């Protein structure tokens, strides 16, 4: 009865290896000139140890890659202040920056450092000169309302990269009002055909650092999908000459076979509540959407049509699922309401639309659009129906939206190889993550991890 309930703790294909074999490095291709100027002043270190990396560089790179900010070069800074008191506001006017991040690093104990940083509102500082008196409880007190954020932390040597991203998150949220996604990860598949194990499931920081190969296989690996807690990945394997869906704990390596039906076992997508997987099975004749309850492995069939139904993607509220279907002729995007099972067509633009997903704010539908034979990433504003093609690259596929909705990571062609690329949700900022070797595909952006 429970023929799929086999729990396999397999370590055969499971390999933990050294990081950075094919390190991704982000190359910005378009859109920096439209970003907001900001100054990330190098943090002064008043000690004797060798710092593991440059915190301000990490922050500046993060903010630039967000597509929203353009950190000015150090040589363009009129001064290198370490605290708000040292800022000469008039000298910063010509730079056009709206905010300055300053900081210091001091020795704490062995291998531990004290980091102080302040985010300064330049416009406010220019008005008040950095000092304001205000009435509080009937008394005049001094305030520093030009300081948007300040903090003092103690971090270990091994935490520098992490904390750099943390500072980026803070700066981004202070200046945009939306949560930063710099402490997230991306899962993707790499292929090096000449390798003994050509197919690899890899997880890296969103910027390509700390790349770890979680699974290596002689047969294809596909469709990684993050659990909402960011601790597990569901993915498809062909290691037994058939497609099977596995769930793997990325921290313990524990691996569980969840479906191995006749035909397709594909496109798993974790529900927002983490309780079930939406997936595609063709066990009943042709590809249909199913819901697999993870606790007891119960299956619920969601679609019933002789045309291809595939690529499920959860609406952020978990109440409906977007999918691709050929029921109208060419593939278009539809959604199925989980309570009523009613199906609604969502897209009408171009020859076909595939790989749809709704942005975290529920406002946009992101997809792969084919128009006149060209595959590009596009989005439709759900309320107005406004349609916009976002990319100009070739053979674009597998768009995955950052958890804060600011960016889309997708796979595309660069030269003769498949690489990952980024495009901002407004289509203005574009960047490429070229791999040093092999093909890179099927990116999946993690949820918030902190």
């Amino acid at each position, binding site marked *: 009865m429970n023929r799929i309930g086999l729990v396999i703790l397999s370590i055969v294909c499971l390999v933990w290896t050294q990081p950075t074999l094919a390190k991704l490095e982000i190359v910005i291709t378009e859109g920096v000139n439209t970003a907001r100027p900001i100054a990330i002043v190098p943090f002064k270190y008043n000690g004797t140890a060798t710092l593991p990396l440059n915190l301000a560089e990490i922050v500046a790179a993060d903010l630039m890659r967000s597509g929203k900010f353009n950190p000015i070069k150090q040589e363009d800074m009129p001064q290198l202040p370490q605290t708000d008191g040292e800022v000469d506001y008039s000298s910063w006017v010509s730079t056009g920056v709206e905010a300055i991040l300053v900081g210091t690093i001091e020795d704490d104990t062995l291998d531990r450092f004290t980091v102080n940083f302040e985010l300064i509102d330049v416009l406010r500082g220019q008005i008040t000169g950095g000092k304001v008196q205000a009435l509080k409880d009937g008394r005049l007190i001094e305030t520093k309302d030009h300081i948007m954020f300040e903090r003092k932390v103690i971090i270990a040597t091994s935490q520098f990269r992490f904390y750099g991203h943390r500072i980026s998150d803070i700066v981004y949220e202070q200046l945009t009002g939306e949560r930063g996604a710099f402490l997230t990860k991306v899962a993707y598949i790499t292929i090096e055909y000449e390798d003994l194990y050509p197919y690899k499931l890899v997880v890296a920081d969103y910027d390509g650092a700390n790349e770890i190969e979680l699974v290596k296989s002689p047969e294809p690996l596909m469709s990684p999908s993050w659990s909402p807690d960011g601790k597990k990945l569901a993915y498809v394997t062909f290691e037994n000459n058939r497609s099977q869906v596995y769930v793997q704990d990325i921290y313990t390596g524990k691996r569980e076979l969840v479906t191995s039906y006749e035909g397709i076992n594909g496109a798993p997508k974790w529900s927002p509540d983490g309780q079930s997987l939406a997936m595609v099975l063709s066990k009943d004749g042709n590809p249909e959407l199913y819901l697999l309850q993870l606790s007891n492995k119960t299956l619920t069939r969601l679609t019933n049509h002789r045309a291809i139904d595939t690529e499920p993607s959860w609406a952020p509220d978990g109440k409906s699922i977007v999918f691709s279907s050929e029921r109208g002729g060419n593939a278009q995007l539809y959604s199925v309401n989980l309570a009523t099972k009613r199906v609604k067509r969502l897209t009408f633009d171009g020859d076909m639309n595939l790989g749809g997903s709704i942005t975290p704010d529920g406002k946009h539908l992101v997809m792969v659009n084919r128009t006149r034979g060209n595959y590009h990433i596009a989005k439709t504003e759900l309320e107005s129906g406004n349609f916009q093609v976002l990319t100009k690259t*070739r053979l674009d596929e597998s768009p995955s939206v950052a958890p804060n909705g600011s960016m889309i990571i997708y796979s595309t062609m660069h030269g003769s190889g498949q690489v990952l690329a980024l495009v901002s949700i407004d289509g203005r900022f574009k960047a490429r993550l070229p791999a040093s070797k092999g093909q890179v595909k099927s990116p999946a952006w993690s949820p918030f991890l902190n």
Partner: protein
Amino acid sequence: MQFSAITKGLLIAIPALVLTACGATSDSSAGKSQTTNAEAEQAQTEGMDTQTGTVDTVQVDTLEVAKTPEEIQQEKYDTLRQQQTVYFDYDTASVDGEYMELLQAHADYLTKNPAAKVMIEGHCDERGTPEYNIALGERRAKAIVQYLQSLGVSASQMTTVSYGEEKPIDLSRTDAGFSKNRRAVLVY
């Protein structure tokens, strides 16, 4: 259905093939035994020649035993079966008429060897999304299964797997490369 047209095609094609096949040499078992006898005779003749020390005055040739139409068909099938790949047009899973005879050859083998099993892999070119291509690849593999079933092959002898766009043969991403990747492969 296209079957009547296909059958008609075969009715014309097979006799024509019989005629052309007769002219060619072959190494089927019947042909081989004939050749062996002839060689023995020739050796005897040559032996006599060396004994007498005379120059060859006699030359011996042989006739091939005429093959039955069944034998000829079998030879053709054996050759055809070496080819295990069927190619498809863009975004379709319909089996082109040019592969009917190839599939007939595989069906012949599978029906005569009920214990034989075949795995049919469906593949796609790299256009479209990986998930869509998995579905399309399965449709291609199943199109082959259905055709073989219509020729009498038992469903229990066949399994399918779709690799979508994950195992391309040609990585060039050109039209020529794409056409090599859109395929179904019969793996014994």
